[in-house]
């Protein structure tokens, strides 16, 4: 569905990705694993068009995305949950959701669907996003991305700094979205969390993808993980 093919990108003169590829299918959770600074977040930003792709391509169902201006990318159905949540902190919960809805001109139905997924947010519609608890902020960031009714969902360390009950809730939503047919790309640091949720895993090392395996294989042979992430 979403294919990233041999992309080179970086921040200004600093190159981060040197020919990285991945391939996400619908109804599947693809996890990106790699050491700090390997280029996982950069990969997601490049998909969103937030970084210039110098060579290679990003295609969604055959359509090229990497030539589009950044604000056209989400309109093709990619929901992005950035690292650190990046909410519009001084806007209310309702306004944050409204921004998500506007991106693909979604109706009230989508709003209700999203609020049914996260009933906690419905109670806090008029509260400033920055004053929510960490878990609620993550819910809002997820809700905002789901407001696009995306085909592909990019999650960058969604469980970072959350308490276990919240992590479980976020995990359930991710699994639910997978079962509804979304293609999900998940960046996650904790290996146990990855193994319990992922269908496939792509290892990123020094700006390249070095290996893609089924999660089932990894569970049987954890030495692969040690080889790529080992400290």
């Amino acid at each position, binding site marked *: 569905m979403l294919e990233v093919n041999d992309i080179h990108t970086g921040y200004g003169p600093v190159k981060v990705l040197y020919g990285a590829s991945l391939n996400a299918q619908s109804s599947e959770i693809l996890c990106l694993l790699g050491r700090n600074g390997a280029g996982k977040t950069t990969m997601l930003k490049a998909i969103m068009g937030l970084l210039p792709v110098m060579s290679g391509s990003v295609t969604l169902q055959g359509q090229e995305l990497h030539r589009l201006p950044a604000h056209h*990318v989400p309109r093709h159905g990619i929901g992005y949950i950035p690292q650190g949540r990046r909410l519009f902190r001084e806007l209310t919960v309702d306004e944050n959701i409204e*921004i998500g809805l506007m991106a693909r001109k979604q109706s009230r139905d989508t709003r209700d669907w999203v609020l049914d997924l996260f009933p906690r947010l419905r109670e806090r519609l008029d509260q400033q996003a920055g004053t929510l608890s960490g878990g609620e902020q993550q819910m809002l960031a997820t809700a905002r991305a789901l407001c696009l009714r995306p085909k592909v969902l990019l999650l960058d360390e969604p469980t970072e700094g959350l308490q276990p009950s919240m992590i479980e809730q976020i995990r359930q939503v991710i699994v639910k979205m997978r079962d509804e047919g979304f293609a999900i790309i998940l960046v996650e640091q904790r290996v146990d969390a990855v193994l319990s949720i992922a269908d496939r895993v792509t290892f990123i090392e020094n700006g390249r993808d070095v290996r893609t395996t089924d999660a089932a294989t990894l569970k049987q042979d954890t030495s692969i993980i040690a080889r790529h992430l080992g400290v």
Partner: protein
Amino acid sequence: MEFGPHLMLASLEGAVIASILVLTAMGLSIVFGVMRVVNVAHGEFFMLGAVLAWYVSTALGGHPAIGFAVALIVAPLAVGLVAAVSDQLILKRINYDPDRTIVGTIGMLFIIQQTTLMTFGPEARPVEAPFNQRLALPWFEFSEGGLQMIWPWGLSITSYKLFVIFAALTVLVALWLFLTRTKIGLIMRATQQDSETAKAFGVPVGTVYSCVFGLGAALAALGAVLVVPIQQAHYLMGADPLLMAFTVVIIGGLGSLPGTVIAAFLIGMSDGIISVFFSPTLAQIIATFLVAMILVFRPQGLMGKAET
């Protein structure tokens, strides 16, 4: 005149100054808040508004109210358009880099100023007020017969100055409604908070920036159209409003709109009152001193939030 009526007169003058100032400073504050651009050319957009008002009202002739009413609409629109185009031509090309935008807007300042000098000329030209009746104001005084209303000689305001105060208030309310109640306002506020994330949610940040830059300039121009029947249009008239607007925005907190309103009121009123009782120079000294004190003790401004 006794002290009481005199103070009232000075306060009214101050309110007029504050009204113009709040519009100009608001423009500067919005541009900085959303785009993080310190617009040094802001005063020239103010001047351009005044000059265009003169052109429009002279070209139309007839009753001064007609020319003024048309100028009130045409001048801000035209200046906003000029600003939006220069954003696309200059600021966008230098990627809104904080240092280079300052140099870029200084360049815009000179281009606009000198173009006006070459076309409009060095003269100061008046625009006739649409209406200008003198309204005598009452004052209350205790005497043997209890509270008495008197009409001190010289205590008056022109209807036009009252109109300026109300017009500025109306624009402020409209601006607030625009920013908080409309979709475009919401998009602007989201862009202000986090432009990269806004992009990831389909916000055309480049277009938003051009609109915001245009809106900021249009607010300055609107203030200028309102002021031009009181003060004449001149190609160098932009310097003072720029300085005052910066004073207000620093005191209020860069990018904070409520802070800007409060500071504009403070500075405008103190400018009016101190100018009447002492001297305009003292008013400026005090305003500048206030800026210095704010920068020392509360660098984020009255209502600004400290960087975290």
